[in-house]
């Protein structure tokens, strides 16, 4: 679906992307993770034909991104970026009707798309009266109108509260189940862990790690079993067969409050790999 090889982008004397390579397969949810200024939005702009790369190749749907600027290809993908806008004086419905007409989809899809972002009852509300979170959900609904094969999402839940984020996450998972490939940039590691089948860590324009979240967590896991005892003590034992007897003793004496493995979050791994916090 997306194939990027040795991608570079230079702004003046600043190298925004360096030798970036990755592939996104059909049906995948790919997370492009990194702090602000790491090159995530630049990558989305290149992949959607809004910006030209300085070097390297970027293909979407098997063709170079420079050839994406035709109505036929644009109907196949959707984009929500952090600076996407809506017409404030118009209602939610009028905003979505414009795009339904542009994409040639039925007006019935407006209701369906609004339902999927939990805004079914708000379609007559003027956009100027919406909160930032609601605006973000309308933008998502607008992108879902034409059921794109490929969806680019740049920090889609950054302005949302946990309840609405969860609603959006469920919607995205359902969309992905229906076959939509999702390219997601985020600095929310929980979101990436919850949604993505593959993640790439981008730091200062360089992809430093690329793998499945499960594999990464396995790879960076500390081989330790933690035991919290009822008397308040905490023990760390090696994750080996030799620890089994000791653990069994604590259990048989009913001393155990909690047993856990020390599995890192994607955020922990990012910090370990890049030395930077995800902000």
């Amino acid at each position, binding site marked *: 679906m997306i194939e990027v090889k040795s991608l570079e982008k230079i702004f003046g004397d600043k190298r925004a992307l360096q030798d970036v390579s990755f592939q996104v397969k059909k049906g995948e949810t790919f997370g492009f993770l990194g702090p602000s200024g790491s090159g995530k939005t630049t990558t989305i702009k290149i992949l959607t034909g*809004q910006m030209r790369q300085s070097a390297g190749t970027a293909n979407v749907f098997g063709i170079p991104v420079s050839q994406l600027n035709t*109505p036929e290809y644009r109907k196949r993908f959707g*984009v929500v970026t952090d600076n996407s806008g809506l*017409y404030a*004086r*118009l209602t939610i419905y009028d905003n979505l009707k414009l795009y339904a*007409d542009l994409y*040639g989809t039925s007006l019935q899809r407006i209701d369906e798309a609004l339902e999927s972002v939990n805004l079914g009852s708000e379609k007559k509300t003027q956009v100027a009266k919406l909160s930032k979170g609601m605006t973000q959900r309308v933008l998502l609904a607008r992108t879902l109108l034409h059921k794109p094969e490929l969806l680019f999402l740049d920090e889609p839940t950054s302005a949302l509260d946990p309840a609405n984020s969860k609603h959006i996450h469920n919607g995205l998972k359902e969309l992905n189940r229906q076959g939509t490939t999702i390219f997601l940039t985020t600095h929310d590691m929980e979101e990436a862990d919850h949604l993505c089948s593959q993640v790439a860590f981008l730091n200062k324009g360089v992809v430093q790690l690329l793998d499945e979240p499960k594999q990464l967590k396995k790879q960076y896991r500390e081989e330790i079993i933690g035991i919290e005892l009822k008397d308040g003590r905490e023990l760390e034992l090696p994750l080996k067969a030799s620890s089994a007897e000791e653990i069994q003793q604590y259990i048989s004496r009913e001393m155990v409050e909690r047993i856990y493995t020390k599995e890192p979050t994607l955020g922990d791994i990012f910090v370990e790999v890049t030395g930077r916090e995800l902000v």
Partner: protein
Amino acid sequence: MTFSVKRFMAIFQKDLKDLYRNLYVSSTALMPLIFAVIYSRIGEVPLAMHLFVITLSLALVGTFLQCAIIAEEKEKNTLRGLMLSPATLTEILAGKSAVTIVITIIVTAVSMFIMDFSFTGRGWLIAGILLSLVFFIALGTWMGLITRSVLEASVYILPVMFIFGMANMFIGLADQFSFLQVLEYTPGIQLEEIAEFSEAGAGFDELWKPFAIILAWVAATLVLAAVTFKKRMMD
């Protein structure tokens, strides 16, 4: 190159609906009507005065409206959404220009009605006005692309108003200020020439020059607008 009437109409309808609710821009576009009412009270209005209001209408409605519509799309980050949709550059610009054309024609026609000016038998003048309208809209498109907000657009429109919208008034001062002679080449003055020549019964052999000058303005602004659009739409 594809052109979808459905997409063109979608943009046209949206802009019309949006403009209806945009009091600042729509009230500014009604200014020529106020001039028309004032001038209609001074008794017999000379042809030059009619041409002044027509040119003012073209500049204030045609250029400012187009400029404000595009500047606001940029200011609110909605133009990028349109550019990423299946709508082509031609469909977007045609949809927006159609709104400006319709409103400019209505405002100009109503202004002339108020001033008791009839277009009957003035085919050359109508042709000249329509050609000039293309220039004023292309100029508005270009200005909309180089300004970042409606507020900035309303500042940038001032020199355009003086140079292109009020040339018919300032040309009277060209004897005192020689630099103003350059205004003779503005579309407004060319429209005045077209009106005067055709009133005197001249044919195209005499009228081609003002038409050619307006056409040159049209070509230059169309190229400028198209080049700027392509440049501004890529980061």
